[in-house]
Structure formats: structure tokens, C-alpha cells
């Protein structure tokens, strides 16, 4: 074996030693990071399984990726401490008692010592306890995270946030209305768009005060619009039926009044926030409200029938909302309210108001028990000290017959400065005792 072969043999041995030492340094840096990754990964895995989140499917790949990243980071961190071949050469020649001949030979002084036929072991021993225990711990915690049984109650419970009840209610209305074709689909689409706008916010914010208030408002507004539509449909249908049935028997004045009322109702149907659907909407749109008087009896009955059908469909669709009563249409009663002897609601300061001259199944609700609400937006049940409920301009009331300051009482037992003052504070029984004593 020539010197070059011997040199190569020594260099290989030296590099092998350096590689083992560097592996040790890399393990020393990697194991703590690996432990951290496995603890966090195992706990996260278990938590996701407990919450039945869909991200659990990605956990294996995520943990594997983090472990690989930890390997790279550990290699970068350990590189500073990696052993060079010259350092490994010193370690080897000292341990094998080569009397620095490797260093000298690598510097070109002297020959490379002959390589031993039976190569001794490298001058390092592995301390396997720590790496093995860390790896075992990591595997154990990952296994626990992946396979530890999750309580069934928690596993089945999907992490779903229910929509606010107001929106669910509106959603149900819209579905029923669309099914019954009671309302113009465009109006329903607008309502749905508003709902989607509210639901586009993060789930966690659905139950915030502002969101709930907006949902309630949407529900109330939609309900109010539907209520108005229903009321207008019924009233229009009633007016048309009356006009068709009794048109020939009514006086000209009553007929004109009824025609005027019908005209207003038709205008209301066309201009309301919710409108009828299909052909009826087209018919109402193309119809001149002033020309109602000129309609034949059959035409009126046919239109009334269609309006009735639509009102029925609307009532059917809103069967689950008993709070809506179509007869409570306030806006449609506004014209002529309390004026002269026209139908409407009466009042103490509005004079006479007769009941409507229409025949209905139920009596007219005049809302005599209705109370006015506070104009303020503040909920009086939740008002706190300091909240401003309202402002009112007022003048201080002055006392017209003010006569100046007057005495408000008199002093008893006044005395001069330094004089003894007797205060008659004794009760009658005590006075009697004193009188008896000094008698």
C-alpha cells in the first residue's frame, strides 16, 4: 500500500469521525425542537379531533412538514459547531496515540503512519439514552394525539354556530313565500340579499348586539312589509267585492267614496315594499287606479277573486307567524281618518268617526286600547342613569304674586351674650316633679 492509499484511508476515517460528531451536534439541536413540535402537534391533533374540525385531516402532513423544517433549522443552528476534518484528525490521533503523525503528515512532514489492519473503534461512544427517550416520547405523544379516544358527546357535537332566530324566521318566511308564489320574487331576493349580508360577517359576530339588532330589524321590517301587503290585499279585495256587489245600490256619494278608497288601496298595492307576484302584479301595474269605477261587475269580481287567492297564499305562507294580522294595516286607514262621517278611527279630539260601511267576517278593530310608544330609541327597561331620553324646551315658571321674603319662625329662649339660658325641655311629668320638690 503506497502513501497515497494510506492517506486516503486515513482521510476517510477522519471524515467518518467528523460525520459522527456532526450528527451528534445536529441531534442535540434537533431533539428539543422535535420535542416542541411533537408536543404542540399532538395536543393540537387531539384538540381538533375533540372539536371534530375538518383540519384534522391535514395534521399528519403538517406535523411531518414541521419535523422536516425543524431538521433544516437544527442543521443550520448546529453547523456552527460542526467538527472540521482537522479537528477530527486531532481527536483521532490523540485517542489512537499516533503521536501527532497525522497532523504532521497532512502538513507534509514525515510519512503517513501505516493504517492498522484491524481498525480500532472510533474514539467516541454514543449516549443513546437521551435521543431514544426523546424520540420515544415524541412518538408516544403523537400516538396519543392521533388515537386517544375522544368522548363521544364532544366528538358528535359539530362546531356549528346556529343562525340567529330572527334570520331563521325570515329565511323560513322567504322559503314559504317562494313556494306559495305569494310575493314578487324580486322582493324576496332583496330580503335574501340583506340576510346574506348579515351572514357574511364572521360566525363569532352573529350574536353580537349590533348583529342581533340588525337581524331583528330585518325580521320586523320584513314582517311589517308583508303585513301591509296582506292587509292591503284583503282590504282591496273587500272594497272590490263591495263595489261589485252593492255598486248599483249605493248612493253616488258613497260610491264615489268607495271608488276613492279603492283607488288609494290599489296605489298602495303598487307602491308597497312588498308586491304581489306573477300576473296579478302585471295586472295591477298596468291598471289605472282612477279607472276602477269603469270596471264591470265581473271584472271586479274576478280581480277580487285573484286578490283573495293571493292573500290566501300569503296567509298560508305566514301560517307560522301568528303575530301577523293582515287587518292591522294602519297606513291604509290613514286617509280620511276621523274626518267628517267617513269611515276611520274616531277619537276624542278628532270628532265623529263611524265604522266602515263594509261587511266583514270579524268586527273592525279600532285600536281603542292602543297606546303610544316612546319616541326614544332607548329601551326603557335597560335605561341606565345618565342616558338621555329626550329634550324639551321649557321656561321656568315664575310666581306672579311673589311678595318678598317672609319670616319663617321665631326664636325661643333668647339670651344675652354669656347669660345662662334655661331651656324648657322638660316633659309635663318632670315639671310636676320639680314643682313638688320646690314647693
Amino acid at each position, binding site marked *: 500500500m503506497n502513501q497515497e492509499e494510506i492517506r486516503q484511508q486515513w482521510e476517510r476515517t477522519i471524515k467518518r469521525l467528523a460525520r*459522527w*460528531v456532526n450528527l*451528534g*451536534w445536529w*441531534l*442535540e439541536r434537533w431533539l428539543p425542537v422535535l420535542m416542541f413540535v411533537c408536543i404542540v402537534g399532538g395536543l393540537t391533533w387531539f384538540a381538533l379531533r375533540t372539536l371534530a374540525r375538518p383540519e384534522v385531516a391535514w395534521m399528519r402532513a403538517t406535523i411531518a412538514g414541521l419535523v422536516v423544517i425543524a431538521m433544516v433549522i437544527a442543521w443550520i443552528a448546529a453547523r456552527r*459547531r460542526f*467538527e472540521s476534518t*482537522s*479537528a477530527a484528525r*486531532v*481527536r483521532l*490521533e*490523540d*485517542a*489512537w*496515540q*499516533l*503521536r*501527532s*503523525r497525522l*497532523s*504532521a503528515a497532512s*502538513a507534509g*512532514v*514525515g510519512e503517513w503512519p501505516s493504517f492498522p489492519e484491524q481498525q*480500532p*473503534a*472510533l*474514539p*467516541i*461512544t*454514543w*449516549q*443513546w439514552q*437521551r*435521543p431514544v427517550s426523546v424520540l420515544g416520547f415524541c412518538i408516544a405523544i403523537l400516538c396519543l394525539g392521533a388515537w386517544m379516544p375522544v368522548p363521544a358527546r364532544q366528538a358528535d357535537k359539530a362546531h356549528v354556530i346556529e343562525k340567529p332566530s330572527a334570520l331563521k324566521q325570515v329565511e323560513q318566511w322567504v322559503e314559504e313565500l317562494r313556494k306559495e308564489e305569494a310575493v314578487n320574487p324580486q322582493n324576496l331576493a332583496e330580503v335574501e340579499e340583506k340576510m346574506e349580508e348579515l351572514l357574511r360577517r364572521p360566525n363569532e359576530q352573529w350574536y353580537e348586539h349590533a348583529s342581533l339588532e340588525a337581524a331583528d330589524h330585518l325580521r320586523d321590517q320584513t314582517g311589517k312589509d308583508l303585513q301591509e301587503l296582506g292587509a292591503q290585499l284583503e282590504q282591496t279585495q273587500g272594497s272590490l267585492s263591495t263595489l261589485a256587489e252593492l255598486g248599483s245600490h249605493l248612493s253616488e256619494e258613497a260610491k264615489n267614496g268607495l271608488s276613492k278608497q279603492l283607488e288609494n288601496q290599489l296605489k298602495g298595492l303598487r307602491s308597497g315594499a312588498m308586491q304581489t307576484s306573477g300576473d296579478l302584479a302585471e295586472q295591477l301595474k298596468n291598471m289605472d287606479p282612477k279607472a276602477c269605477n269603469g270596471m264591470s261587475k265581473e271584472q271586479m269580481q274576478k280581480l277580487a277573486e285573484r286578490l283573495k287567492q293571493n292573500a290566501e297564499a300569503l296567509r298560508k305562507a305566514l301560517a307560522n307567524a301568528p303575530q301577523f294580522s293582515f287587518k292591522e294595516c294602519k297606513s291604509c286607514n290613514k286617509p280620511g281618518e276621523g274626518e267628517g262621517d267617513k269611515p276611520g278611527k274616531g277619537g276624542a279630539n278628532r270628532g265623529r268617526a263611524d265604522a266602515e260601511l263594509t261587511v266583514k267576517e270579524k268586527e273592525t278593530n279600532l285600536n281603542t286600547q292602543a297606546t303610544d310608544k316612546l319616541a326614544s330609541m332607548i329601551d326603557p327597561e335597560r335605561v341606565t342613569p345618565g342616558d338621555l331620553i329626550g329634550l324639551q324646551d321649557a321656561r321656568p315658571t315664575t310666581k306672579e304674586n311673589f311678595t318678598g321674603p317672609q319670616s319663617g319662625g321665631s326664636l325661643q329662649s333668647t339670651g344675652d351674650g354669656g347669660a345662662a339660658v334655661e331651656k324648657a325641655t322638660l316633659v309635663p311629668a318632670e315639671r310636676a316633679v320639680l314643682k313638688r320638690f320646690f314647693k
Partner: protein
Amino acid sequence: MSQELPQAHASLHQLRTTLQSVLFGQEQLIDLVLTGLLARGHLLLEGLPGLGKTELVKGLSKALGLEAKRIQFTPDLLPGDITGNPMLQETPQGRRFVFQPGPVFANLVLADEINRASPKTQSALLEAMQERRVTVMGESHALPEPFFVLATQNPIELEGTYPLPEAQLDRFLFKLEVRATTAETLEKIVLNREIGVEPVVPAVMNAESFAALLQLTRSIFMPQPVASFIARLVHATQPGEPHATGVKHGASPRAALALAAGAKAKAVLEGRPNASYEDVRAIAPAVLRHRLILDYGAKIEGLTPDLVVQRLIENIPAQDKPLPTTLAAAKV
């Protein structure tokens, strides 16, 4: 160097064998003495009387073919008795002082029982050791080349001794302890020696060949890791270092130079072209033991410089880079 080294190794082996025939049972001491000479250092041999110190020096001078002189130090010895004195002589030009060289003018000076002389006389010799010249009445006289002082001293606990100051001790390359021989060695001495009869020592080499050996020693390669090891070893002797507990004053840079020179000499003695960690470890006690000054606490506890050096050798690794905790160093 490749051709000179085997020859040097052979002649040194012969010299070693010759000296071993003079001084029985002191192979290690002989090796250290030869190492010290090759490193061009002065040696201090300490031991009880009768252990063969003087015999070794005399045998060495004969074997090396160098001029050797012996000075027996006594309390009344004066500096001029060592360095030489100016003598008033009648010359053709009239009366004038002529320098008469003292016994220090030799290649090999045996300063026997150096600690029996007064400090003034000791310092005269030590100045000659350092400067390798003697100055008398303003005139300098160079000492011959090579110049070695092999001083012997009795243990300082003995009466009538003047211990050498630390600064002067530092000028000795090695301090060697001559220990009592074993019974087998004594038996060999009894069988082969007689009182009053000096052993016949053949000359193994002459002054020129010895000078060539000294030159060869200087050319020995000192690998950088070995130099680093020497530096760390010497630095570790400083007070406050983890393995220097009980040390009051550590070794000087001269100790590091002495270690390097000694390691090279040891390499020549073993026929190697380079110094090694093993060489440094082998000569470290001889180099460091007289350069470490321990505090009183350490002395009371029984700590000696040799124990401190041994502790340093055991704890200062050749490779100072640590191993990861997953690995442990293993001696093969």
C-alpha cells in the same frame, strides 16, 4: 531530515545505553536529562546525596566528549570562584590584570549542591546561565558552546541550604527528581561497582556531532494542534483557572517555550520528525513542577506541584472542542 533522524536516533540510543550502564535503574531520569540537553536547557536535579547525580553528569560529559567541570557549592564560595578573577601579573608591558577563567568556562558544568552556596554566589552562576557570558571588571567573556549547567540540590528541608528564588528556578528548563532505586537496582550496583573506582565510560559522540543533534532538534516540526495544546496547558496553570486550584502563581511563557523545546527534543530522542501531545505530557512535570507556586492552603492540604500538573494533564484534552451530549469521548 529523513536521513538525519535515523542516524540521530541511533546515536542517541547508544548514548542512552552508555549512560544506563553508568547509572543503574534510572532510565526515565536519563531520558529526561538527554531531552533537556537536546532542548539546550539547564537542568536542576534534586535528590538526596548518594543517588548518582554527580555520577550521571560525569558519565554524560565523558560520553558526549565535552569539556566538563564541577563546582562544589559551599556557603563560603564567592562569585569569583565560579566566574573567574582578574589576577595581577607581570607582563612585558608591565603589571596588569589578566582574567583567569573560572570553572564555569566549560561545556558541561556540574553545580553540585547549588543550594548550599549563598544567594550572591548562586545568582552569579544563574546570570551566566541566562546570558551565556561572564562580565568581570567591565569585560565580557563568552562561554563556550554548547553550555549546559546541570545543578544538583539537596531537598530544601535539609539544614544549611539556601533555597533558589523562583525567578532563578525559572531559568532551569527541567527540574528532575532523583528518586531512590529499587532493591534489584541496588543489587546490580553492588555487583558492578566499587567505592573509589569510577566506571569506564566510552565517548559515544563528539562536540560537533552533538551540535548537529542540537540543530536537528530545532528543525523538528511543531504541529499547530500541539502548540495549541501547550498554550492551553500553560494557561491552565494560572490562578483562577478551573484546574489550578491551590496555585498561587502559574507558569510563565518561558514554560511554554520550554515545553515546546522539550517536546521537540523528545521527538528526536524517539526518532520522529514532529512533536506530539504525548511528548508534551511526558515532559510537563519536569518543566512545570518548579514553576508552580502553591498557596499555603494547598500546601497544608498536602497538594504538591506534581499533583497539580498531573491533574492538568488529565483534564486538558488535546482537542479542546467539546463533544455533543449525545457523544462521549472514548479512549482506544
